[in-house]
């Protein structure tokens, strides 16, 4: 009998997992889940399929053309979830009484992003993460960053850096600059690519005040350990920028107290194309993978989209990126 090749293969970006590599992966995920529990988080499951509106462009998540979309019987657009945070925010807004807050929720499952580029990146990838909903404080931010460090240590990684930024520093400057939405987006991208000569080029033709231009050009270089706070303060023109720096200082103090400061650095040029971030934002980097192994941040307005305003902060860990960096660093991660 001839079996057509097509049905023997998984579609591009999808894969089978079995045997030892699956056992090792399960063991790794168990250790990470233990960290979630030790911080007092309890599991939540949300559906794989959600209405398109949960991930729409006003919420500012994955670009629409990278979502797997289809229709239900009534013609509503549905999507396979590209990330968990909006789903968990929706569920939190829907199901919990005021007295339940602050909520500590953890999740794990597959996410689906139909990225067109040929980059060997999986289209179905496994994520684990937590959301702390109902608390706006440096303590809450620091808790999530500490949890990120703890779970990476539990995975077996020894060398990694969690790079932390604060989007308000840039947002305040962007408001002051009077740039339109499109130029703001261009500048945001240039800053997050550390392309400061590009930033200078774009700003040259605009009417932004010279001190705003100078601060924006400085942003891509404002990264490093705690000593950059003083430099950042020198470019903090208004109250919003000053309080962004103060917040990061406070987070740094708390992390020092926990002995985790050596895993953490700061980067005022760290920005995200996910529009929902409103405060701290961070990425965790390690050797052996071109992309961050975990990403997170504060999203105080997201729950408002689902009818219940509440501050929140969270982190998502990319299990496939993590296992590939553990393998490349020669760190066994099974039992």
């Amino acid at each position, binding site marked *: 009998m001839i079996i057509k090749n097509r049905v023997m293969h998984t579609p591009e970006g999808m894969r089978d997992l079995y045997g030892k590599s699956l056992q090792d992966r399960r063991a790794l995920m168990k250790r990470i889940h233990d960290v979630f529990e030790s911080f007092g988080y309890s599991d939540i499951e949300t559906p794989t399929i959600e209405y398109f509106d949960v991930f729409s462009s006003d919420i500012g998540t994955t670009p629409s053309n990278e979502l797997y979309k289809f229709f239900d019987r009534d013609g509503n657009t549905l999507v396979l979830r590209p990330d968990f945070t909006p789903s968990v925010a929706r569920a939190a807004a829907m199901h919990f009484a005021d007295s339940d807050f602050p909520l500590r929720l953890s999740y794990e499952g597959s996410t689906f992003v139909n990225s067109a*580029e040929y980059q060997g990146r999986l289209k179905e990838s496994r994520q684990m993460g937590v959301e702390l909903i109902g608390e706006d404080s440096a303590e809450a931010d620091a808790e999530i960053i500490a949890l990120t460090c703890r779970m990476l240590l539990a995975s077996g990684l020894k060398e990694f850096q969690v790079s932390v930024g604060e989007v308000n520093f840039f947002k305040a400057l962007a408001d002051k600059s009077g740039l339109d939405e499109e130029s703001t987006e261009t500048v945001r991208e240039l800053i997050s*690519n*550390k*392309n400061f000569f590009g930033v200078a080029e774009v700003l040259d033709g605009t009417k932004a005040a010279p001190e705003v231009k100078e601060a924006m050009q400085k942003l891509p270089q404002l990264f490093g350990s705690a000593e950059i706070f003083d430099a950042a303060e020198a470019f903090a023109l208004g109250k919003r920028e000053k309080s962004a720096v103060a917040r990061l200082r406070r987070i740094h103090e708390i992390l020092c107290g926990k002995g985790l400061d050596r895993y953490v650095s700061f980067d005022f040029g760290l920005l995200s194309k996910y529009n929902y971030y409103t405060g701290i934002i961070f990425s965790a*980097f390690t*050797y052996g993978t071109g*992309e*961050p192994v975990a990403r997170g941040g504060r999203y105080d307005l997201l729950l408002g989209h689902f009818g219940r305003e509440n501050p929140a902060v969270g982190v998502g860990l990319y299990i496939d990126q993590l296992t590939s960096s553990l393998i490349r660093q020669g760190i066994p991660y099974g039992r």
Partner: protein
Amino acid sequence: MSQKRYLTIALTKGRLAHDTLELFERIGVNTAGAMDKKTRKLIFTNEELGLRFFLAKGPDVPTYVYYGAADIGIVGRDTIIEENKKLYEVLDLGYGKCRMCVCGPASARKYLEGGDQIRVATKYPNIAKDYFYRRKNQTVEIIKLNGSIELAPIVGLAEVIVDIVETGSTLRENGLEVLEEVLDLSARMVVNQVSMKMQNDRITELITRLRNELSKNI
């Protein structure tokens, strides 16, 4: 960082690599014989500074850097835009200056004004698409070629081409001219996101030294 790691630098084969190695020599970095044209070695190591160099084809340089196989890459801005990978673009090296242009015979100029569906041949389909679709709002058919792009309008494969123009002599010899300018180009230094965080001190120091050397010439 317990064990010593190499800082790996991917260079674009050809003139760009030559100019870059010369620049490194000027800031006192011994480039370990990478300039020797006769050698068949693929990778060159400077043990004392913990640096490694290798040569790659232009479009592959962003790929090596994106995956972290190289920490740093030296590559033209055209390639960075065309490949569109998430990289830190930290330094304009100033050399390798040229322009990305729409070129063709003078008689093709009329096609760029009207709404005719024309064919555009190029090695840079993403840049060409972005220019015609987003900046000019003109629907065109893009044909990807891998070299000797100037041939396309001569033999009638396409009405115009989008290509790099340095002096314009190849164009003139073939009866073509620059019709519109798309982008200014030069050599850039790109850095892997992870390397920038994990080896910040070494990379920042290298960038600062290169920047100081470059500013001497202006």
